[in-house]
């Protein structure tokens, strides 16, 4: 992100003093999770920013939900604002919440991306993984269609690769079950990786860090859980975009992926 987006003309501002978005504690206390979301929004608002970019689907949903609930319920907004006033913050609801996919698919011309691509991905077949929370619930206004998302596939296509159409595309990665049912969670992840692998994909491109963690970092344990040998390169979309732009893999954090991304990098160079 930090490497790729500035090259496409976006200015990124780091927020100081922000905290967790609230998603992970929703199960324990929804009210406190809304406070966390609203607090982060208020910090960005205080800096006079108009757009808040998230790389994570969980953050995108948390912020969208906070804006929804605080927007329709004045007394709730008042209560949350009284908590925020301890830190001299106030939630106004003036931000637009954006996901990386919004930015790259809707806010710049496809040509701008195509022009920045130095190495086209011809001959590669890549599967997409959107992640549940940027697709649903559509009533809140999400990043793409809840049942038939296309944007990430379109972006993969822009880079010259073929995006794989596969029946398991909408299957959940299981990340949020890791806390209570890790074996089931790893089975979710393992079965999906296997389905993609069996269809002959050269890799899996994700747009959510939680999915990334399940499919990349936990690929080995997922394989052990379902009793299959899994060997699928998994990377976040901006990592793939960066590679095609000719940015060094280390600058894109590709040395930190746990899945066999080198196999994919060799095919690209």
């Amino acid at each position, binding site marked *: 992100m930090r490497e790729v987006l500035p090259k496409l003309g976006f200015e990124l501002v*780091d927020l*100081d*003093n*922000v*905290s*967790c978005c609230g998603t*992970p*504690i*929703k*199960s*324990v*206390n*929804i*009210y*406190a999770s*809304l*406070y*966390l979301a609203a*607090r982060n929004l208020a910090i960005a608002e205080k800096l006079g920013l108009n757009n808040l970019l998230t790389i994570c689907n969980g953050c995108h949903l948390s912020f969208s939900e906070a804006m929804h*609930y605080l927007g329709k319920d004045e007394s*709730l907004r008042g*209560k949350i604002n009284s*908590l*925020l006033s*301890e*830190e001299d913050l106030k939630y106004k609801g003036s931000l637009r919440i954006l996901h990386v996919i919004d930015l790259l698919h809707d806010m710049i011309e496809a040509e701008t991306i195509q022009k920045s691509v130095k190495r086209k991905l011809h001959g590669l077949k890549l599967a997409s993984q959107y992640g*549940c*929370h940027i*697709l*649903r*619930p*559509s009533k809140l206004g999400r990043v793409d269609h*809840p*049942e038939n998302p296309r944007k990430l596939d379109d972006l993969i296509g822009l880079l010259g690769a073929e995006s794989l159409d596969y029946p398991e595309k*909408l*299957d*959940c990665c*299981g*990340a*949020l*079950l890791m*806390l*209570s*049912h890790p074996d*089931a*969670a790893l*089975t*979710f992840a393992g079965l999906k990786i296997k389905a993609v692998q069996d269809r002959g994909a050269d890799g899996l491109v994700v747009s959510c860090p939680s999915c990334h963690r399940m499919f990349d970092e936990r690929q080995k344990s997922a394989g052990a859980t379902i009793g299959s040998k899994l060997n699928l390169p998994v990377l976040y979309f901006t990592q793939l975009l960066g590679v095609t732009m000719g940015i060094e893999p280390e600058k894109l*954090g590709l*040395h*930190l*992926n*746990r899945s066999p991304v*080198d196999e994919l990098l060799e095919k690209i160079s």
Partner: protein
Amino acid sequence: MTITDLMTSKKPDAGLRLRVLGKIGEHKPYNCYQCIKCTSGCPSMKMLELKPHEIVALSKAGFIEELVNSGIIWTCATCLKCKERCPQEVAPVDLLLALRNLAVEMEAKVPESYLRLVSTVLETGFIQKPQETVTRKLEKVNREKLGLPKVSEPNEKFKSAFLRALEGG
């Protein structure tokens, strides 16, 4: 006349049902006509036998304490398909989250890792402290080495507001 669970002789609890209905969320169990579309597409149904339509029916009938004390409410992966697909806008996933919140309040059996997340957010602002990690070549790196900005520690004012938020839920 009220329903009685013939297996346990338990009676519905209208007071607890009101507490669940009052939680923030878009759950409307009374809208449900049991079409079972939620359960048909539920990934946790396949793996862990979660049946969202049953959760809705039991909530509607008022068997809240039974749900709160059952491990089944912790099997939802929050993929949100049930909320998206429900023709009646029942939002079973929001109902499950409300039941989980109530389980915490009633000090029922809650998976400990969920509670640990909350205390870590209180201490660090996040669900974990910034960590060292290793590259695929087993070289140790941290945020500084990766050229990432420092993550600030939470101040006391945040901590006290967050604690108040936890109590106010």
